[in-house]
């Protein structure tokens, strides 16, 4: 069972939509938990950047997108990838260095892309995906494809020149681009208070003539609504929007993080703002889903992740054959 990755629309507009939103947030949460577990048991290699606590952002944003719309993602990219509809087994397989992994084991967590769902790729370079998304939006405009591009990036990435140059190009050319900043309060150990002299990071849009909006990034509904408005603007040829989605990363930045730069209290405070129960309360309140349906979704998501881990673990490991030839795409004669 896989949910329909094509579903678009307001998370509260129907039980289907509510189920989708919840399922995807659970998928992200449980995918990340599985990754953490596999790392902990020494079964995974490299490093990991988990997005636990941030599930509402990608889920809400992608509910406003068609499958043909494009995204660029980050080092903390599992959520975007899942929300855009990627296959969980192939994702997990990539992290385990398997042949069937999205990158055939060559890229790992920071380089998963999925052409079929319009995901142009995670990126190990902070800010690296932003100009690429601008280019995708430029192509959309030139080809009149009617698609939009969404660049996900962190608060930290906004201080890279790449953000700046891309934002300005998108502004002057009215590109169908959504600059989606996941402000999780820290770029590694750097708090936004230290790295910015702005109340709201969305105000940075003012320097480019780009409208900016700040939303509660732990509220999938608020995120959807902001994204939907930005997408509509973009499809209308009215140009880019900067969305600041305020959220929090529960886990350390990566494996090596000792969390010295923030307090336990702060982390606990944010855990209370967990986007999943946040949304569950809403759908229960409004009577869109029942408690049972919710439990079923949670169960299904757990099964899906377990299944993905199982299939991925059983899959054949990537082998070094053909690495040299893989550098270039063959020139067709």
């Amino acid at each position: 069972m896989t949910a329909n990755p094509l579903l678009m629309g307001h998370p509260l507009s129907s039980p289907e939509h509510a189920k989708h939103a919840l399922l995807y947030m659970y998928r992200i949460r449980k995918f990340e938990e599985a990754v953490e577990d596999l790392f902990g048991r020494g079964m995974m290699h490299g490093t990991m950047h988990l997005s636990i606590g941030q599930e509402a952002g990608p889920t809400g944003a992608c509910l406003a997108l068609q499958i043909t719309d494009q995204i660029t993602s980050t080092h903390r990219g599992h959520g975007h990838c899942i929300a855009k509809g990627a296959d969980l087994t192939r994702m997990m397989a990539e992290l385990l260095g398997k042949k069937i992994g999205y990158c055939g084991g060559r890229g790992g967590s920071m380089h998963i892309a999925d052409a079929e769902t319009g995901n142009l790729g995670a990126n190990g370079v902070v800010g690296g995906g932003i100009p690429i998304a601008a280019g995708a939006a430029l192509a959309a405009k030139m080809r009149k494809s009617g698609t939009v591009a969404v660049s996900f990036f962190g608060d930290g990435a906004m201080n890279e020149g790449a953000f700046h140059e891309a934002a300005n190009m998108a502004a002057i050319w009215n590109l169908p681009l959504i600059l989606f900043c996941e402000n999780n309060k820290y770029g590694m150990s750097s708090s936004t208070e230290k790295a910015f002299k702005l109340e709201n990071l969305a105000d940075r849009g003012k320097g480019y003539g780009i409208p900016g909006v700040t939303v509660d990034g732990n509220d999938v509904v608020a995120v959807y609504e902001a994204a939907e408005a930005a997408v509509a603007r973009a499809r209308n040829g009215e140009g880019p929007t900067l969305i600041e989605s305020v959220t929090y990363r529960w886990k350390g930045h990566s494996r090596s993080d000792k969390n010295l730069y923030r307090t336990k209290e702060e982390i606990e405070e944010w855990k209370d703002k967990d986007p999943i129960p946040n949304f569950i309360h809403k759908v229960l309140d409004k009577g869109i889903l029942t408690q049972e349906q919710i439990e079923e979704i949670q169960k299904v998501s757990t099964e899906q992740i377990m299944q993905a881990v199982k299939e991925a673990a059983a899959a054949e490991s990537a082998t070094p054959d053909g690495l040299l030839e893989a550098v270039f795409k063959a020139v067709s004669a």
Partner: protein
Amino acid sequence: MSDRMLTMAEAVREAMTIAMEEREEVFILGEDIGIYGGAFGVTGDLYHRFGPERVLDTPISELGIVGAAVGAALSGMRPIVEIQFSDFTAQAMDQIANQAAKIHFMLGGALHVPLVLRTPQGSGTGAAAQHSQNLEPWFASVPGLKVVVPSNPADAKGLLLAAIDDPNPVIFLEHKLLYKIPGRDPVPEGATRIPLGVSKVVRTGKDLTIVATGIMVNKSFEVAEKLSAEGISIELIDPRTISPLDTAPIFESVEKTGRLMVVQEGPSHAGYINEVIAQVSGSACFGNLIAPIKRLAGMNIPIPYAPQLEKVAVPQIADIEAAAREIVKNWR
């Protein structure tokens, strides 16, 4: 075959024109390439022929421009980026080396980046240290980039057409001083491609192999012609694509001549010609060498401004001539 003599700028423009007529995915973006016609006049009237969308003037944002080209390429377009001076690829190195070059491999082949980055390089215009570099080693050392250094208009046209066709990122390095001079050979009409990765034996000879690229091919050719009168017979090879490098003709030539000189304008330290030397030194033809390999490169200094200083910073015809004569005379 026609006998049209074009300049390099004209040949490059012709290749872009043909490619843009052939496929609507091809477009050009860069600073001042529109009405201005390009800092070196290479895009010329293309803005008027193809309009402002396909000859897209950009803000001064090299990193952003190359990134946008990467994104457009990932989305089915075939962008040609012009960076006004190769020195300013420094601003865009992340998108060039960490994105464009790696995406196809790193993503497991799911996506590819058919992107051409054209940029003028080289000294000789009195523009000093930040506008005169030859940065081949930056690109040639990055797996995933193809690097082309055309030495004449006919090659430039054919290689650029092939570069635009190529599904991979190609860095196309044009020497400024070649822009305005016609080549020795006519430039064929039409859409004839010259495949990337094939070295060209410009001139055959039996005493000395010279490997040179870009403007150094012309200079070496002149020397070869001159020295042939003295009975020194020089074989001149122009790799044209420095990455991937087609070494077979070089090895063959060295086997025959037993003497090798490599010439580049850029400074020798970690220069790309060292790749030629390393390949030869590790190959079987090494045994045929009767002379140490002569490396003739720019001085290991930034390019100075004043003409009398700029000149000494890079190999001149007289330097090539003297070096060639010396190798052949001293090593028999």
